[in-house]
């Protein structure tokens, strides 16, 4: 028995139309979608989602925003494709009086302050930083004070660059001898696996691999297995999925995984939507960044039985 929402009679509820823009077609956004839609349903309102997926392309994002704004949706939740290039799109919604709720990524600070009514932030710098700190701990425990690191990146997306920045900063701070010897693209798992294998071939002295996204993480630990370096190379990964949690549970290769729960972000985003519908701005909402160690993997698997991150 939820509290009746404002301004709607229980009998024939006015339909609320929400525009939802998912950054690209990664599973993470499946989690967000489930989170936001689940929360909307639980709220008891009559909500219709108009959703789109511009595949990380700002030009498509701009088209979609245009469509959403001109069709007069009640609110828009968005993971912006670019800090600077998405400003025009978000401004357009703002000018039309439609509240915009960023999640995961957003536009630059100035524009966020001006045009965005809430930002469910999963700060990518902090995201990388927490994992970097975990890596420092792990290497220190293993008495490696100048680790050689390989990176599997997803740097066609700006957010990944920031993740790396955070990770790198934390490692250089904790272990100034750290050296990043290789950095290759491997956002999708099918590409990440061979690229990681080749990286280990070209740099046999690597001590650790950093996966900036889910696919990259899988590529990294699979390559370590193939190269028979289990126990010699540590993998630090991003984004939990059933597969990654299962691997983490073993604890021999994958040492820690940093994650912002898509479901969690979705719930927070919905909360921000509800607030903004009442006309309140909530500025930034910190989405919890969680660091998982092997010991916590099993728990994740039980609480996420349906596989949605």
């Amino acid at each position, binding site marked *: 028995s939820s509290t009746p929402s404002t301004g709607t009679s229980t009998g024939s509820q006015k339909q609320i139309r929400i525009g939802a823009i998912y950054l690209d077609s990664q599973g993470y956004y499946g989690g967000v979608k489930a989170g936001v839609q689940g929360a909307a349903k639980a709220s008891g309102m009559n909500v219709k989602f108009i*959703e789109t997926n511009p595949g990380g392309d*700002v*030009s498509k994002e701009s088209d979609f925003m245009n469509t959403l704004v*001109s069709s007069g949706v009640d609110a828009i939740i968005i993971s912006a494709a*670019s800090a600077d*290039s998405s400003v025009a799109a978000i401004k357009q919604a703002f000018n039309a009086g439609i509240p915009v709720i960023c999640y995961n990524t957003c536009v630059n600070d100035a524009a966020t302050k001006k045009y965005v009514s809430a930002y469910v932030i999963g700060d990518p710098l902090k995201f990388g930083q927490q994992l970097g700190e975990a890596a420092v701990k792990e290497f220190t425990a293993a008495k490696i004070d100048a680790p050689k690191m390989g990176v599997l990146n997803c740097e066609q997306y700006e957010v990944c660059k920031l993740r790396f920045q955070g990770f790198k900063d934390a490692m250089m701070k904790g272990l100034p001898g750290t050296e990043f010897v290789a950095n290759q693209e491997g956002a999708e798992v099918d590409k990440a696996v061979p690229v990681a294998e080749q990286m280990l071939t070209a740099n046999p002295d690597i001590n650790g691999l950093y996966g900036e996204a889910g696919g990259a993480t899988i590529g990294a630990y699979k390559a370590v297995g193939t190269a028979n370096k289990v126990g010699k190379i540590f993998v630090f990964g991003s984004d939990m999925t059933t597969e990654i949690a299962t691997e983490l549970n073993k604890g021999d290769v994958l040492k820690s995984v940093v994650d912002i729960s898509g479901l969690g972000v979705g719930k927070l985003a919905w909360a921000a939507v509800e607030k903004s519908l009442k006309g309140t701005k909530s500025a930034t909402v910190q989405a919890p960044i969680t660091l998982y160690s092997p010991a916590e993997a099993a728990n994740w698997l039980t609480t996420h039985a349906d596989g949605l991150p």
Partner: protein
Amino acid sequence: MTRLSSNTTLVNVVGLLGAIILLYVYLSSSATGFLNLSNQLGLLRQAALVGVAATGMTLVIIAGEIDVSVGPAVALSSVIVAESVHNWGLPTIVAIIVTIIFAVTWGAVAGALRARFRVPSFIATLGLWSILRGIGQFWTNAIPVPLPDSDPIMNVLAGSIFGVPTPAWGMIIIFLVIAFVARRTSYGRSVFAIGGNAAAARLAGINVARVRIILFATMGLLAAISGIFLAARLGSGNAGAADGLEFDVIAAVVIGGTAMSGGRGSLIGTFLGVIFITLIGNGLVLLGVNSFLQNVIRGAIIVAAVLLNVTLSRRRSSQSED
């Protein structure tokens, strides 16, 4: 004159018009906000990105060729214009000219590969597709290159003239120009002649190689124009933008009744094709269809439209087997 394949074109144009009207009727009743003026103007703006390139692509396909490099060409053009202003400090108008020169040059190179060295255009432009995308991303590190906020030319390009979005004006003018070129100039008729029978065109003294080079250089020019509009609209140059644009452009052209085998096609058909697929895209979003499912529907519609075209035009022409 040139009641070019008048029967097929007519059937196709009427069919598309019918489909567009049906879409309008359906969407106005089921998709909230569809008939809003702002949505209609937005539609035009979206149509422009596909439409500008589709004009040139119509000629390319009529000539029996294909260009699959449109998306990366548009993206790189947006990067060039932004870099010219942002990093090289060129005045906007010079930046625009520089962008056009670059794009026309790479288009002409692709054309020369086809015309002089007989590299199939599918391969030449597939290579270009990879090269242009790579150059843009490498150059900018995949980070958007901002344009100054207050640039008056860019503001006009991003805005509206007489209430209609500037890119839509651009698209309409380009359609009129290319339609005129196609029907009323030697160059345009040469394109049809080459697509219909390249050997005969050569024997008649038409400079086939030159026409082919111009075709692809024109594609470069149009990509530059689209790229500049895009940069103006986004306020930045983006190496990753216009992803998969070639899919929509080719789809619009073939839905518009231009034959992949060359020799037949019309700009009016392409125009309707552009409107049709823009409407479908817009409608699917407004109806709240799952975004992955939208891919399925769009794929099915292009196949169905071409299937219909082929079947109708086959009924009317002689049964030439191949």
